[in-house]
């Protein structure tokens, strides 16, 4: 069978291309919301952690955050996804996409937290002291002086974390979500020709990742161009 026939069979017949398009949509929805959730969680955890490290306050919250970080970073993503779906949300009827967003978001939050905490700790302590010496309280000093500088440092790393998450969502098929990867796999199982569907899936991921990476590169150059330190 030639390329054109194979192409027709895999994508045109029975509108099989829709598996890829719908899958891509699902992948993007899961990624977008999981990134948001991950950032939110990550920032909260990072603030708790660095507040504890700087002031010794929030001891109990800090301990909880450490458990969260250890568990999430110490277990495989797929296992977390399965547990979220079958154990945590096992007895409720709930959208699988929502479950995936929760699982990927909670997972990403752990990595975001450590990136942001690193950024906060990398800001020279003299900045913190200068703020406090002027009479600003802890919260004001963090908000107006430390965080803006930390954020600038970690922005590229955060963007990279989002890119990693995009690829990570490819395991969503484990809970029978028809994401991009699953879409390609469904076509493969119907046509028994693995090459085109799977390669197409790979190419679509690659294009998205390359596009996002180039955005991060541009962001990095811009940040260093007006680096005013």
């Amino acid at each position, binding site marked *: 069978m030639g390329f054109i026939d194979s192409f027709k069979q895999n994508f045109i017949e029975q509108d099989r291309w829709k598996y890829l398009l719908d899958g891509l949509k699902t992948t993007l929805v899961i990624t977008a919301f999981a990134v948001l959730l991950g950032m939110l969680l990550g920032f909260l955890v990072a603030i708790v952690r660095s507040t504890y490290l700087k002031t010794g306050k929030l001891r109990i919250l800090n301990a909880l955050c450490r458990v969260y970080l250890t568990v999430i970073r110490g277990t495989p993503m797929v296992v977390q996804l399965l547990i979220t779906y079958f154990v945590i949300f096992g007895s409720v009827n709930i959208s699988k996409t929502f479950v995936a967003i929760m699982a990927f978001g909670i997972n990403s939050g752990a990595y975001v937290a450590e990136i942001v905490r690193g950024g906060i700790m990398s800001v*020279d302590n*003299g*900045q913190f*002291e*200068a*703020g*406090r*010496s*002027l*009479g*600003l*309280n*802890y919260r*004001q000093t963090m908000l*107006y*002086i430390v965080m*803006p*500088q930390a954020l*600038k440092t970690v922005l590229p790393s955060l963007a990279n974390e989002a890119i990693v998450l995009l690829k990570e969502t490819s395991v969503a098929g484990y809970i029978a979500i028809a994401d991009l990867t699953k879409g390609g796999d469904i076509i493969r199982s119907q046509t028994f020709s693995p090459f085109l569907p799977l390669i197409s899936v790979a190419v679509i991921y690659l294009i998205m990742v390359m596009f996002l990476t180039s955005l991060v590169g541009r962001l990095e150059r811009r940040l260093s161009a007006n*680096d*005013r*330190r």
Partner: protein
Amino acid sequence: MIDVKGLKKSFGEIEVLKGIDEHIDKGEKVVIVGPSGSGKSTFLRCLNLMEKPTEGVITFDGRDITSLKDKEIDRVRMRMGMVFQHFNLFPHLTIRKNITLAPVKLKLMSQDEADAKAEELLKRVGLPDKAEEYPSRLSGGQKQRIAIARALAMNPEVMLFDEPTSALDPEMVGEVLELMKQLAADGMTMVVVTHEMGFAREVASRVLFMAEGYVMEQNEPEKFFAEPKNQRLKDFLSKVL
């Protein structure tokens, strides 16, 4: 104005301040000298509670500030300006914002009032055209003058200087000292940790010599340099003069 009684400070096992009693009057210019590791910076940093004393009492305007809550400590710090060795200007903000951030966020001034104050201060420190620059565009001496302006924007009653010229290239030391002399002449109460003996001689109303966590000797500058009594001070002066 500031009264220190039995001040001790330890970092873990190491006792840096071993019992300091000192009184600083309004309008005084106290210069603290001494070898590195003698505890002079720690002493200064205890005055505005950047370091929490391990023992002892510090009174500011008749009020014990060592047992205050965080919120009240912030209020005390608003009244004490601090200038650091490494300037610690905020690199992500313009000079104007560096100066106006604290008074505006602490609701002491509106942005307009603070801007006007910044303009006046920039003139005073001789950098009227730098308001919209970022700190990275300034020389070390200019940065330190801005840092002084930033502290002055809070209208402090005392200024604490922690080795303000130690990180500067030699040719920039003069401009910062000149500004500090001006400030002294205007009547500001100042506590200055420094290695600039010329400044101590010229500006100080009193010079303290610290070593090993104690104030070993103190005197008015002329006698301090001409007739040192303590052997440690004699050794110290013979090395730095």
